[in-house]
């Protein structure tokens, strides 16, 4: 009986007086590919960033692989875990960002090796081999000694994805990874992600690429104003939206 890789229960997040997440529930099994769609301000990116504690959250629980993320209850009091513990937990997930965020002073290989050597305490040779393996998987082995400044946007994003996956996370998080790319560079990144999905990687993606969400995901979540508006099979949802909000959203998006 496989337990859930990701379990979110009653997630709330407040920015001062504004509540951005109003009670999110979500569960993912191993191998699930879930796309989160919605208009900006719906809270989808915030939810993603709570999972690896890039954002704190005010209420609720997030569990990855049966571990409580970020907070624990001690003596009935909800307490934020220590920075060290949170850093350790972040290695359970991998994240790819909209702005890639590759370290500009390191080559592609070094970017991938940093986490392996410093967080997973791997020997440099072993880390180097893993880095090259993943660069090869994303099709960039011959650029292994290039610096981010020498790579195109699509190439940088592929390296960034390799950097995250090389850490063997239980769950991969993708935050609008194609939104900052020129249109002709989007496809090479989507191909990499489709490939990973085929191999059974558990993935949670926030995306605007509707066609991609339709083709790749086992499930789609539509978020609206901090709540989950609709959830289900992509074919069902896109062709027969049950709520008006989703219908409106799909109409104004690039899907059709």
């Amino acid at each position, binding site marked *: 009986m496989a337990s859930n890789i990701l379990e979110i229960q009653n997630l709330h997040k407040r920015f001062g007086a504004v509540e951005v997440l109003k009670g999110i529930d979500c569960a993912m099994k191993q191998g699930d590919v879930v796309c989160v769609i919605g208009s900006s301000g719906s809270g989808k990116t915030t939810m993603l960033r709570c999972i*690896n*504690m*890039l954002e704190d959250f005010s209420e609720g629980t997030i569990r990855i692989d049966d571990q409580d993320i970020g907070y624990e209850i001690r003596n009935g009091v909800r307490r934020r875990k220590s*920075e*060290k513990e949170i*850093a*350790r937990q*972040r*290695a359970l*997930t*991998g*994240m790819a*960002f909209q*702005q890639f*965020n*590759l*370290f*500009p*002073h390191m080559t592609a290989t070094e970017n991938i090796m*940093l*986490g392996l050597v*410093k*967080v997973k305490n791997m020997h440099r040779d072993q880390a180097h081999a893993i880095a090259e393996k993943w660069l090869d998987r994303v099709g960039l082995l011959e650029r292994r000694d290039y*610096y981010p*400044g*020498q790579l195109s946007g699509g190439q940088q994003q592929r390296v*960034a994805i390799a*950097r*995250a996956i090389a*850490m063997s996370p239980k769950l991969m998080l993708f935050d609008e990874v194609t939104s900052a790319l020129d249109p002709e560079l989007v496809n090479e990144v989507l191909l990499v992600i489709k490939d990973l999905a085929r191999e059974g990687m558990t993935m949670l993606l926030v995306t605007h690429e509707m066609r991609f969400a339709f083709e790749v995901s086992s499930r789609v979540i539509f978020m609206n104003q901090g709540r989950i508006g609709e959830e289900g099979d992509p074919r069902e949802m896109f062709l027969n939206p049950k709520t008006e909000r989703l219908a409106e959203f799909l109409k104004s998006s690039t899907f059709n």
Partner: protein
Amino acid sequence: MDFTLTQILHQLWIARIPIVQGLGVTMAAAALAIVAGSVLGVGVGLALTYGTRTLRWLTRAYTDFIRGTPVLVLVLASYYILGAAGVQLSPFQAGVLALAVFCSSHVGEIVRGALQAIPIGQIEAAKAIGLTFPQTFRYVLLPLAIRQVLPTWVNTAAEMVKASTLLSIIGVGDLLLASQEVISRTFMSLPFYFFAGFLYFTVNFAIEHFGRYVERKTQIPS
């Protein structure tokens, strides 16, 4: 007064040892001030960027006070106050202390600017792969900040060489004081003030060029 070139060169030769020693004192004072000031300055910069509100406020007060005060006042204050307090510091040490404090306020500002210029995505990417903050600082922030800081820091180093001349006012035997002693002996004001100026100019010019060289060498290929 008219001096022939031969007379001037003759006096320069006679005075060569005090002048070279003076130059040595100048370089030593500047170097010590730069090193001590930069180390302190990095601490100041870190406090301003990552410190708690109280720490930031205190550090801000420190830098604002130091930066609003002329270097000469810092040097004189250091000289007189430490003397009166019974602290056994030579004029050289008191002067270098003042210069180091001055340097730290400038370096602190530079470091703060460089750290804050690093896009926040870098810190998030480092967090995402599980690095702790000390690790993030050491492997990501520091290397990026140093490259950003380098040109301005070299400027500050040149400023310290220029500021070292103020130590002559409290009797430290630097290049300027050594030149003044020669002048008081020989009355050759024009040649020796000119020569001193020329030496200072050369040192600073060399520092500037060295800085540009280092900048080129540490550039990230793009």
